[in-house]
């Protein structure tokens, strides 16, 4: 399953992006055995894409250039990967976690993604930033016989 969605780099499209992620995750889960799936799986995609898309729009320097953001999904066994690509300047994805004890008002984006997803990777290629996020559909923790 490969799905690619390209949207203008404007904040009014953020909900479209996160809803698309939610839908794709739901379709993916339906194709597996849904009873065993991690209950927060689809919500994790919705939230992660909302965060990644918001970041991409926030750092788009020249909005007059009709920039776009591409969201692509791919699956492998029971793993779903979503990538969010933009043409902004390169950035360092290895930002420190926000200081949770001071309850900051922002800076949670990548932190939330790391918490929700199994893995997060960043690639800079031919002028494109690409954040890929992967999550496995089954819980690894299973005490029940």
């Amino acid at each position, binding site marked *: 399953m490969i799905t690619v969605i390209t949207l203008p780099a404007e904040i009014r499209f953020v909900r479209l992006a996160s809803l698309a992620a939610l839908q794709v995750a739901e379709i993916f889960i339906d194709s597996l055995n849904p009873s065993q799936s991690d209950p*927060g799986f689809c919500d994790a995609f919705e939230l992660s894409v909302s965060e990644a898309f918001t970041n991409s729009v926030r750092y788009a320097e020249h909005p007059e250039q009709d920039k776009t953001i591409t969201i692509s999904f791919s699956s492998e066994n029971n793993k779903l990967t979503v990538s969010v690509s933009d043409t902004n300047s390169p950035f360092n994805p290895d930002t420190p976690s926000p200081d949770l004890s001071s309850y900051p008002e922002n800076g949670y984006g990548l932190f939330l993604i790391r918490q929700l997803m199994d893995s997060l990777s960043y690639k800079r290629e031919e002028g494109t930033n690409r954040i890929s996020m992967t999550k496995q559909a089954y819980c690894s923790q299973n005490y029940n016989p």
Partner: protein
Amino acid sequence: MKTLIIIREQDYEWLHHFFPDIHPLLVPICNKPFAEFLIDFSILAGSEALRFVMDGPLSDVERYCDNGNRWGIPVSYASIQSTDDLQTVIEKNQRFCSAERVLIINGFIFIHYDKQHNYKTLLASLPDGEILSCDSGSLSLRGSRSETQKVLENIPLSLIRLDVIDVYYRLCMEILNAASSPYVLPGYSNEAYCHIGRNVVISKRAEIRKPVIIGNNVQILADSIIGPNAVIDSNVIIDRESAVIDSIVLANTYIGEHLEVQNKIASGNILIEPESGISIAMDDPHLLTGINTSGSSKSLFQSIVHGLAALLLILLQLIPFLILWPILTLQGKWKKSTNSYYTAVSEKYLILTTTAIERTGPLSTLAAALSLDRFTLLFRVLIGQLAIIGSWPHVVTPSKITEHSSTESCCRAAVFSYAETEEWPVNIGDTAIVERYYAAHGNPMKDIALTLKALFNRIHETNTHP
């Protein structure tokens, strides 16, 4: 009736200190998470809904209990402030508590109950107010009731405050020793005093002394002694000539060879003496022994054997590769991805290009069956960067480098994985534990046999990548 379970961070902090990776509500008591005992009791008490209220993190509990479907009781969650008194907690859960009677379990306490009793009728006949209490918690009833009230003298319930590790240890032992268990223990009971889970391999030369409870995916090797009084959770390996007596082994633990665990709690690389509360972290991950003893001559021999095997495979795969690779590339079914990986073979981070073949046509199915996706990786074996068989290399993301350097150091990154050989379930925890086992027990000749087995398995496999 509904049940409100109020637990505060300060009451369970001590337990978090011993098992930092497990939420205190999910710490298993005889292989069943503590939270489930609370859920079971709520159901016995006739509850139609249950809510966990905490001033600390809830997400792990939520992930485990979800909406309560598994038990047939709706489970919800709510946060409070650590300074809130009971009245405030009830106000914050006004909607949940209104219109119905509420059983309030307040504190980090274990409730001794017996599933034979009819708590539903009993609780319905009790007046509002406190039923039982101990130093750090209580059980109380609240709300409107219409029936006539009578006070019972002897309530078949008792509370125990969970405040030190010794209480936890003794509680597990007590439940294990209860002949007809008053609790519902994990459903794999088949014989009194001996509960054994699924996918458990016990060597013929191992000795099991009742009472024991053993979880799922457990391997017990030759000449080891399990019990009496052993609680072994899931994904555990007890290696040769080791003993687990009067002890608890938590999930994902590897007990190395010739190790005697007596009156202890083992969890990962932590060994706890319950009586004194002293815990020792073993330097070897997962109490792993014997992994570092292999001398350089063995490793050299091993690299040569692996190199030769790789060379042979390269020769065999060369022609099919040269034919199929260009076709599949053109069809777009040959998918490459590049990532950083960690390997203990050369103790370095490697940049590897891995391939996934989309199995959608006869040619790509053939290519996958021949393991051509691993072809390019074989050259890495020749130059000693990878082993031919071992563990799948771990993808390293910048944030995870530090974690990996300590826990994964025993795994050899390789072209084929032991997990593939054993057709082990696709589950991170299980795969890791079986790979640790082979990392400790593999030898060059066995490696060749296992590589062949992996190659053979991949012919039937429908998945393209672990």
